[in-house]
């Protein structure tokens, strides 16, 4: 296979491309998140202090409910996003995006590229935006959002967020129908080459069992409560709050909520209450971050 089309090359090529566009190249955030948006480089940075902020990074994401014990060719409880956040949104951002596809060997002129309405909302982050899902020959390969609000606060200036679903994108580029068959490194098998399945199949099996069957709900509920407590404690000092560590607690709570959800122990009415609690945490962090930024 063309080495340039391997999973790791796609990551590298996106990194180089967006680096060349002036983005700060960052690394994944080191805690479990449900989406690249949760990275403080997106959620907090678009609220300040600098109105100009451009960053790009890879982010492994966890969605416990999407686990399928490694048996479904398209669904994973752990997967990769490549995230680009540019503030203020440039006038030529759509073209920048299309050129980024060329950078990963997907010439947009050879394909049917569509921008299909898809407004984005994250109830736990109190965030919303308008934009599209981007289709390439019928496959949704990216999400494109003009950030309007985060933590219930208007984002000014508006930032543009591009999220590439890397597995989907790579499956499209490699013309592969099963995510586990993705070529990770472009090396032949007899030379030690690895597929996505070689690296992650076992993980998908074990975590599906953990997420759906083994996680200890009462311990998780305790963790959630602790994170919430810690979060509000860290923001208590109004003169010198610690929004970054507090926000870590908010992310943790959000992931714990997802775990509880996967375990099926949250009733419909409780669900709303949990979401509200995470939302309050994220909002408090955002407000504290903004206060600090404006000093």
């Amino acid at each position, binding site marked *: 296979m063309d080495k340039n089309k391997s999973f790791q090359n796609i990551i590298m090529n996106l990194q180089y491309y967006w680096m060349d566009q002036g983005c700060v190249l960052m690394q994944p955030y080191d805690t479990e998140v449900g989406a690249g948006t949760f990275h403080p480089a997106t959620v907090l940075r678009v609220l300040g202090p600098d109105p100009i902020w451009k960053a790009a990074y890879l982010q492994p994401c966890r969605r416990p409910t999407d686990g399928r014990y490694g048996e479904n060719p398209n669904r994973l409880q752990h997967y990769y996003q490549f995230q680009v956040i540019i503030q203020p949104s440039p006038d030529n951002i759509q073209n920048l995006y299309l050129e980024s596809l060329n950078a990963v060997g997907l010439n947009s002129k*050879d*394909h049917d590229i569509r921008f*299909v*309405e898809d407004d984005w909302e994250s109830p736990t982050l109190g965030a919303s935006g308008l934009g599209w899902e981007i289709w390439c020959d019928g496959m949704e390969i990216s999400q494109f959002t*003009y950030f309007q609000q985060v933590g219930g606060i208007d984002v000014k*200036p*508006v930032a543009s967020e591009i999220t590439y679903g890397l597995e989907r994108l790579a499956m*499209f580029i490699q013309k592969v129908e099963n995510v586990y068959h993705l070529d990770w490194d472009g090396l032949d098998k007899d030379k030690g080459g690895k597929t996505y399945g070689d690296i992650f199949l076992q993980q998908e099996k074990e975590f599906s069992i953990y997420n759906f069957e083994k996680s200890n709900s009462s311990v998780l509920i305790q963790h959630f409560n602790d994170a919430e407590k810690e979060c509000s404690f860290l923001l208590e000092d109004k003169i010198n709050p610690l929004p970054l560590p507090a926000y870590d607690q908010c992310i943790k709570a959000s992931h714990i909520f997802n775990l509880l959800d996967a375990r099926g122990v949250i009733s419909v009415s409780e669900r709303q209450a949990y979401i509200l609690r995470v939302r309050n945490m994220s909002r408090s962090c955002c407000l504290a971050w903004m206060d600090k930024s404006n000093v």
Partner: protein
Amino acid sequence: MSKNKGDKGNLLLELFSEEIPARMQTGSEKQLTNLFEKSLKNRDIGYGQISTFCSPRHLSVIIKNIDLKQKNQIIEKRGPRLGSNEKAIHGFLKSNNIQENDVVIKDTKNGKFYFYLNQINGINTSEVLPEIINEIINNFVWPKSQRWAYSELKWARPLRNILLIFNNQPIEGKVAIDKNNFLNFSTYTFGHRNENKKIEVENIDEYERLLENNYLILDRKKRKNKIINDTKLLLKDKDIKLLDDDYLIEEVLGLVEFPNVLIGNIDKQFMNLPKEVLTTAMKVHQKYFSIIDDKNNLVPKFLFVSNTIPKKERDKSIIEGNERVLKARLSDADFFWKTDTSTKIETFNEKLKKVLFYEGLGSLHDKTIRLSAVSIYFSSLFKVDVSLAREACILSKFDLVSEMVGEFPELQGIMGGYYTKLNGKPNEISDAIFDQYKPKGISNDMPKTKLGCMLSMVDNIDNLTGFFIINKKPSGSKDPFALRRAGYSIVQILMKLKLNISINDLFTEALKSYENSSKIIKLDLIDFIIDKVKFILKKQNFRDDIIESVISLKESKNYLFPILYERVNCLNDIKDTNDFKTFLVNFKRLKNIIKSNKLLDISNAKLDIHLFESSEEQEIYDKSENLDINLKKYLTDLEHQGIILKEVINLNYVIHSFFEKIIVNHEDNKMKVNRIKLITELTERVLKFSNFHHIEN
């Protein structure tokens, strides 16, 4: 060059943005027309034909024959009254900076006054255009809009270019995006996204063609025709055709600048999935059309509309790409199908206990229990087996927690139908569950079976009753629980099956199942349904006044529904006959006489036949008594509605001769009271059938 008359010119405005959501495009064309017309009218600028266009990124309007100059305006200023003193007149002249011969004298309601008619010369339209364009853009309201970068302007998606040409000349001007950024009016636009070629427009007449040369079909109708014609060409010579879907076509039209219709293959391994699953999976996520053969069976092909310039190699790889995507989608659906079909219905039903129907209305499981209880009464009404009815109710909601319905909510009911069948439930039950969400409001798509109709009805009754109890009635344009639609569905089934139930009794059992005994809620529900009955009757082309004459009867909600329907039908049948029209005239005359004597107290009076002086009185009395007997016997007898109506109309002759011969206003009060009493009784009896005075003749 377009031929403009000397004092008129054509205009082209194009608002070019990033991709506008498909669902907003048609509305935006209308709005652009309305706003432009308003701005021109407000400025007294005449204009001719308006045409609008839109593609995902272009929103354009061409207006023919706009006045090059605004019409001159005359502003009338009233001065002092004729004959006022010099000082006042001079003051008026001075304040307007005019001479004595500039004023005229005009007659008004309040006398003669001095007037100054100030003529203001209209300015060139090209000079006011920038103001007009700004006005339109700033007053534009999108269903949902956004900011971008520093913008203070909101638009559905970022606005990137404004093309403005008037009388084939560029217009200088700009629109503010924010304090520091402006879009200057330009004379260029862009072609198909693939090439994104910048196109200079010099002549308005060439605009549409220029874009079309660059693979951008601006006219929605032309795009639609291309899709339809290309589809015909692709499917010709085969006995297959598109599964009609107007909604999908409209949506697809808003996603393409140049429709390129392509066909792909569905992997055979998925053709065992239910038809509805295949079409829904293709349509909802992928916007693909299904293809059927002459027996209405799906064939393993799908049709889709790509937004590309046709090119053999590229088309081939686009088809392959889409086939792979569909395969992934259908493997998902297949996975859901296999998971669901290997799960016991009891397991699903157990899960329903944890799923809230709505805050305050219990779980979905509670709902099935209520439906089952209510169905005991309704099964005898629908003449269906009670134990089948109860089981259908109990099994009606479990599919809501299945994997498939979780992914495709529009398959609710349908999946329940399939899963119950696979689990060996009687066909009657699975057919009923399959159809339970029909009809969707006003629609001819009814459940196929009586049990299906019953399930649909008790479910809708439960929805209405529950949401009315927690005071979530629809109001104004807000109807988040689609209760109006539920109402229409109930009434349609009521009519179709001619159910022997009164509107009054419709909600009795459901209210009991909610353990609610509020009279107010019941009355609200009854009023709500009466409203829907009227609406549906109107839809069936019955005249408003005829419907009203029956439905407004005090007793109408106690009548079995078929009686009401039959009565409206009977009235409708004879509404145009001369006999009926004369009857209405006579009847109104009767009512008027009674009305003009309403001060007369006849409540204690008893009709005394010995006071009759003429055969006419006797005759009216006989007919009236006869009517009374028949009403008592047959008023609520379905077969007799037409016969009673005939009897009522036949009163014509006696009423007529009564008026000819008898003077009601007899000088002897006793006689007068007796006569008023006589016709009052008759009127009251006639009004039991219908409020004839509501009917216009």
